[in-house]
């Protein structure tokens, strides 16, 4: 019998994502991948997986997953209030997010709503046993490729697990939630900042922009002050000969409102891009909800690179700083084993 997680109730927009399908943009293939790279990396680290293992990206509300395996270790990361249901008639009991959990056959994990972010992540130890497409498991639902059948999860789907069971070891948790930062979203001017007037560029960095309802994995349309193009729009001021679109590119069509392009963005486009979100702040963009506001602040390429390196250091420090998660009154299995010098205990690789 194959081991799996059965979707007994679907969430809103849950897709499998890894760090993206790179290498095929020249063929028009969007990279897709996790909207919040940090959330996925932390979930994978808690589950003992390599960073690029595909996990479940929860969009707004997660699914109910029934364990159809002897045991499975899941790690949840994000502002969730998950619950565990032991059996058909059992009452749901709350469990913690930002940590790993060992689940047994017949238990149901209710991932539930995310509070204050649009995305959260669920990783399983060993990953999902699904075929990769063009080198990646990332779902790109517009073309129906990757992930589980190229689409978001639906009730009745069974996600096959690579491991039929996992050993009981210490569960791990984040010592504290990762600090994504709260100041202005850092951007680098360009590639087409010269398509905007000086006043237009000032508007962009001096006023607040609000996430509209049109926000999804492809990008976020912002509402706010109109950004002036350098040349009248009627005379082609908002048209360029199409060029490549980097993650976080901020295009400003004729209407003058910025659109930040994210994971499922098209590979090339013909609107001028005033600036590009620094990679350090892309995970923040991937968590924004409609109605939330941001300000943009310009940094240089060198500053953006340094910020990213610093964030990577903090991410690795957070992973190295995972603490043992114990239920109240529970025991520290590792310490017990070490003190008793028990041999033959198999650990998950950290």
């Amino acid at each position, binding site marked *: 019998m194959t081991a799996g997680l059965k979707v007994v109730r679907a969430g809103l927009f849950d897709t499998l994502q890894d760090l993206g399908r*790179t*290498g*095929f*943009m*020249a*063929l*028009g*293939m*969007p990279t897709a991948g996790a909207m919040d790279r940090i959330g996925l990396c932390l979930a994978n680290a808690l589950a003992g997986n390599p960073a690029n293992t595909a996990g479940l990206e929860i969009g707004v509300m997660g699914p109910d997953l029934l364990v159809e395996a002897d045991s499975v270790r899941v790690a949840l990361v994000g502002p969730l209030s998950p619950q565990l249901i032991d059996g058909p008639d059992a009452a749901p009991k709350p469990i913690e997010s930002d940590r790993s959990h060992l689940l047994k056959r017949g238990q149901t994990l209710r991932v539930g709503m995310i509070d204050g972010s649009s995305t959260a992540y669920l990783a399983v130890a060993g990953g999902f046993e699904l075929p990769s*497409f*063009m080198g990646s498991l990332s779902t*790109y639902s*517009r*073309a*129906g*490729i990757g992930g589980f059948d*190229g689409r978001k999860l639906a009730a009745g789907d069974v996600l096959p697990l690579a491991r039929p069971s996992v050993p009981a070891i210490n569960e791990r948790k984040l010592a504290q939630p990762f600090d994504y930062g709260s100041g202005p979203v850092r*951007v*680098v*001017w*360009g*590639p*087409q900042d010269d398509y905007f007037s000086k006043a237009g560029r000032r508007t962009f960095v001096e006023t607040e922009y609000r996430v509209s309802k049109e926000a999804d994995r492809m990008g976020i349309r912002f509402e706010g002050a109109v950004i002036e193009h350098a040349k009248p729009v009627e005379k082609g001021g908002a048209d360029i*000969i*199409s*060029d*490549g*679109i*980097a*993650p*976080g*590119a901020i295009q400003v069509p004729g209407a003058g409102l910025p659109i930040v392009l994210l994971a499922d963005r*098209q*590979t*090339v*486009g013909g609107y001028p*891009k005033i600036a*590009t*979100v*620094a*990679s*350090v702040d892309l995970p923040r963009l991937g968590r924004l909800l409609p109605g939330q506001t941001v300000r943009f602040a310009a940094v240089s*390429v*060198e500053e*953006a*690179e340094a*910020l*990213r*390196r610093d964030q*990577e250091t903090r991410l690795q420090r957070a992973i190295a700083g995972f603490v043992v998660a114990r239920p109240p009154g529970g025991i520290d299995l590792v310490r017990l084993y070490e003190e008793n010098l028990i041999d033959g205990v198999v650990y998950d690789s950290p």
Partner: protein
Amino acid sequence: MSVRYLSCGDTAFTVEFGNEISPEINDRVMALHAAIGLAREAGEISGVVETVPTMRSLMVTYDPLATSRADLEPRIGLLIERGLPVDGNSRRMTIPCCYDDPEFAPDLAEVAERTNKTPEQVIAAHLGSPFKVYVLGFMPGLAYVAGLDRTLFLPRRSQPRVRVPRSSVAIAMDMTTIYPFESPGGWHLIGRTPLWMFDKRREQPVFLSPGDSLSFERIDRKSFDRIAREVEAGSFDWSSLVKSR
């Protein structure tokens, strides 16, 4: 020709060879795309994730944890100075196209009327155009193919269609294209190929690549149906369409 480096954040930059569409500029784009590929294979450049050619520019994406803009830009400048190889891609593709069924070519009569031709003359001009794939984008496998016979230049339809069938062959401005999926579209539909430009069952799901030379071959409805059945069943011999120059 001067080269401009445009910032695309801290994970990419664009090397822009000009601000117009011309075969000469696109040749330089494709040459740098190939040169960076070779330099990566030879281990001369590391940290580059991929390169994205468009009509007049090449976007270079990189991993800011593995390299930096300050390190990469001069290396790429050196490749350009060293002299770029002539077009590294020598594939020549033939695309079978059925122009004869009104269902496949709903705009053929209108295109003929607006270009002062007979439908047969429109087809002949399309068959005689020296096409080249400039860029893929908008959706996976959608190729912008330039080289359309000048006498067929028309702007896009003023009212785009909500639903253009997969594998429709269309023209607009100075280009032709083949729709990889059913999608909305504003180009003039003048035929249909039995081929799928994107087929996720294939090892190479995307059929065309930037730099490919391309010509259309006229087929009748009977041949269309036969090839369509083979494509659907996954038994079609795609290599029969690829010839080296």
